[in-house]
């Protein structure tokens, strides 16, 4: 029992990753938009689990808050607003499915050709372990959130401020785009 639990704990990332892939595939393949949103929610929660198993606790929690708490609810609201059952889908998939499949196959082959040595070669990189310098930094910072905020407010201060302006612009832009016309 203990041994099995240990195995599960060691493979936590792969388990969450495969579950996220299943949720994503369900999202793309399902016909109803509400089912798509639910698949998306499941995939996002599993990606949060992946973040947690990669020792990024703060990002995992932020992922759950931002996606499950904000974006999925927004999507559900819009699905409710646009009343999708009114128009019939001529088919789930677009006309250019054939060219899309060809593009994906070409991309996959190019990816494998480029990263063949990295993925399957003998000199595949070592397992992800915490580097000593990061461990030292974490020991100073005590917590992942503190370490991330150190990075965010020292190296990424300018992008952070730009992001805040962009969020303001997006807020105003969304209001302007979605507001009803003057009567």
């Amino acid at each position, binding site marked *: 029992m203990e041994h099995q639990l240990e195995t599960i704990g*060691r493979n936590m990332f792969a388990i969450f*990753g495969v579950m996220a*892939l299943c949720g*994503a595939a369900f*999202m*793309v393949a399902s016909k109803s*938009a509400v089912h*798509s*949103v639910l698949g*998306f929610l499941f*995939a*996002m929660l599993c*990606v949060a689990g992946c*973040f947690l198993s*990669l020792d*990024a606790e*703060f*990002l995992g929690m*932020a992922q759950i808050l*931002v*996606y499950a708490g904000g*974006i999925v609810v*927004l999507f559900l609201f*819009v699905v409710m607003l*646009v009343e999708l059952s009114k128009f019939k*889908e*001529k088919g789930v*998939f*677009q*006309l250019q499915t054939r060219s*899309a499949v060809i593009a*994906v196959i070409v*991309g996959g082959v190019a*990816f494998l050709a480029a*990263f063949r040595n*990295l*993925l399957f070669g003998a000199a*595949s*990189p070592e397992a*992800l*372990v*915490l580097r*000593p*310098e*990061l461990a030292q*930094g974490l020991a100073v910072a005590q917590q992942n959130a503190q*370490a*991330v905020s*150190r*990075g*965010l407010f020292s*190296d*990424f201060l300018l*992008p952070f401020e730009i*992001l805040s302006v*962009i969020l303001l*612009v997006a807020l105003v832009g*969304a209001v302007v*785009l979605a507001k009803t*016309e003057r009567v």
Partner: protein
Amino acid sequence: MVNLNTVLLISSILFAIGIAGVLVRRNALVILMSIELMLNAANLNFIAFARHSGSVSGQAFALLVMGFAAAEVAVGLALVVALYRKRDTVQVDDINLLKG
């Protein structure tokens, strides 16, 4: 523990599913969700490489990407709602005003 290859493989498959969603589906909402999926695949890579290279910069940048994704989805959904008001559809096939 976690192998870098596993992370790369899973995130590339996630990205491929996102691309397939954008190219293949005709519902604008599903296309937006697929774009979010691709951003998440990129975030996964950021975090894996942050851990691999021993710095938290990747995690900080992933947080920024998350903020950009939220801004993008707000504008995208506002566009979908405006489109529905003007043209009464959210199917991208029916939006052909720019077609010559």
